């Protein structure tokens, strides 16, 4: 009897401890997460972009939707594009580590007839990084539905949520004000362009080093191709048009990775339902034109690049 009671007591203790842990793990993020957003988070830019995409839906004016990575966030002047085209411009470019599938799915739900969709992929952007995707889902929970597969590890995701909630609570508690910084929410204007670097001097940056990784060239290109093809099919069924252009890239990085870039571009050429415009060389600029990476243009060069995108895509007013 005694030993049975002991075992029961032991089990109860551990069950209660487990319940307590779960309460902490799920309860605190729920309590904190609903009101707190960490303004130092660059990925919160997704909110601005999604809001603009949703706000412009159903507009009488046609839209120019730019899909891609941070090279678009840093390299495009949406207001200037609107002046040049008479279209409503939505710049969805945010971060290459969010991966191709997220970036396509995120916009698809809001696309409509007559939209002109410009895809400008960074060359290294394919699967994305789990860490970045999770960070995005934490900053912007609406994004969760576009990456169910990535967040399927519920324990890991929930733990990240808890840790973030604690960090936000700490910042609020000690009244730490987040100063505007390049990679924070304050970096964006209301159109979703990064403008914070307007008066900042450029920084030294590492050259781009593209690699296929363990997944291998053939497999990556094949998957990339089929997911783009699928996306284009759905967009065209809606009555929208898809264009694809190369991203802005520093001269030295282009030269270092030319072979790989050409392989990626050739792969795009095999996608039948996409309008491929220009070539990677068209968007190669001197290294001095860039801000802090070989694909983030300086503020003053955004207009040149924006105009070039329009010219090469053939959608100038």
């Amino acid at each position, binding site marked *: 009897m005694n030993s049975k009671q002991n075992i029961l007591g*032991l089990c109860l*203790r551990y069950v209660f*401890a487990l319940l*307590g*842990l779960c309460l*902490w*793990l799920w309860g605190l993020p729920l309590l904190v997460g609903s009101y707190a957003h960490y303004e*130092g988070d660059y990925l919160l830019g997704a909110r601005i972009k999604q809001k603009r995409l949703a706000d412009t839906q159903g507009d009488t004016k046609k839209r120019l939707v730019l899909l891609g990575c941070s090279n678009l966030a840093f390299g495009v002047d949406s207001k200037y594009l609107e002046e040049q085209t008479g279209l409503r411009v939505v710049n969805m470019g945010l971060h290459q580590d969010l991966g191709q599938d997220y970036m396509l799915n995120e916009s698809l739900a809001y696309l409509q007839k007559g939209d002109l969709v410009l895809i400008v992929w960074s060359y290294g952007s394919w699967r994305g990084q789990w*860490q970045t995707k*999770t960070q995005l889902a934490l900053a912007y929970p609406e994004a969760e539905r576009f990456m169910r597969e990535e967040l399927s590890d519920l324990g*890991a995701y929930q*733990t*990240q949520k*808890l*840790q973030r909630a*604690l*960090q936000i609570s*700490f*910042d609020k508690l*000690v009244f*730490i004000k987040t*100063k505007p*910084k390049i*990679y924070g929410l304050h970096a964006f204007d209301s159109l979703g362009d990064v403008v914070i670097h307007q008066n900042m001097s450029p920084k030294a940056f590492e050259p781009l080093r593209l690699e296929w990784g363990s997944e291998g060239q053939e497999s990556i290109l094949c998957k990339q191709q089929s997911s783009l093809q699928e996306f284009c099919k759905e967009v065209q069924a809606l009555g929208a048009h898809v264009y694809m252009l190369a991203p802005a890239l520093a001269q030295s990085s282009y030269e270092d990775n030319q072979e790989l870039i050409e392989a990626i571009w050739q792969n795009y050429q095999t996608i039948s339902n996409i309008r491929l415009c220009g070539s990677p060389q068209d968007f190669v600029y001197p290294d001095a034109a860039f801000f802090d990476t070989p694909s983030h243009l300086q503020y003053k060069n955004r207009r040149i690049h924006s105009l070039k995108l329009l010219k090469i895509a053939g959608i100038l007013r």
Partner: protein
Amino acid sequence: MPFQSLSFLLFFAFISVLMWFWKGPSRIWVLLLGSAGLYASFRPAYLLVMLALIAWDYLWARVIDAAEGKKKRWLLAVGILANLSMLGSFKYMPFLTAQINVLFNASFTWPVWVLPVGLSFHTFQGMAYLVEVYRKNIKAEQRLDVYALYILFFPQLMAGPIERPQHLLPQIRNLASGQMNWPRFERGMLLLVAGFFRKLVVADVLGILSAPCFAQPQNFVGFPLFLSILCFSIQIYADFSGYTLMARGAAHTLGVRLSHNFKYPYFALSMQDFWKKWHISLSSWFKDYVYIPLGGSRQSFGMASAVLVLTFLLSGFWHGANWNFLLWGLWNALWILLERYLQLHKLPLLLKRLYVWTIVFYGWIFFKVSNLNDLLHCLFFWFRGLRHSVPVFFESLYGLTAYHWFLAFVFSLWLFVSESHYFRQKFSLTLLRRPFGAIVLYILIILSFGQLFDNEQLNFIYFEF
């Protein structure tokens, strides 16, 4: 499969359940196969290297045991040479070849192989076994499975402690008749989660703070550089002692007591004292198998000093094939020699500790920085520009939030308080007797603050050796 990964936890849970229910002599095989599988998970070819090492030491110890007289000494020398050759060809030959090429303007080449995980630890454990058999302190092990598990036992597989055969072999033999029990399992779990806490919460948070500086030391001067060195000093202790706690905890649950590797080293009162408390299994190995056989302190001052310097140079070289490790060894040896004149015992307690912290923390620069320019920069520029105020530093450095600094401060303090004499007297025994609450608390803290998702970048520092 690093220790701090989920896959290791699952592996450990699986082995624990098996060992709980498995009875009889084949328990040794369960652990042996599990350990071999874990080792092969890093790189299957590693296991072949390890099996070759095991087979050699097992057979050679029996040859040594059977021999007599002068022949026995030669046999021991051959045995040790074989172990050193194995270690040398993986770890030291590329470095030595490069030095020879520089010295003689030659162009010899040596293939650079990936160092099998923990090879430095295993070869030292193997050599300890050969020496102890030679000294007749133990008989050569008859059972290959027992000896193989002595080397491959998974809790100490990656980074020690470097166990002595007298201590570990009898425990492994007893595993056959042993049985797991709940109190011991709980105590083991407490050690395990305490190790996780040290690694994932203390070491890895500090690692995030110190990494930018050591990645590009030339960009840092003054207070940021000083703080980075301080962070690394606590990080390396939390990291290695965390691993040791995990190893001891995992072994304890299975019924094996591994040696202590640390005895509160940052509370040491001299450098000599520090080396009795830091990485004890390695320090005592060098003491027993190098320093004392070469005469130790029972010889002229000049000879004793030379032997001490040699021992520390070898100890530094054990950590890595590079000049910075040799300099680190020399740095430590020189201070121990100096202490004979410093009359530290006359100093108040606080000053003694400050002295040890200064020497040890400064010494970690040699340990961490291998590039000569970076090394010189770190050694001479940390006290320049101390005008950098703390708030400016917190706001501007690395783009990290004050939160990380807060965590680093709180948990480093926790680490030190938990090692203080007062805390140990007051709480340690109680905790070990009633570990449940502490286990839950540690898990809570690890989930809340542990760096659980960047494990690739934040592996154990001592896994490199």
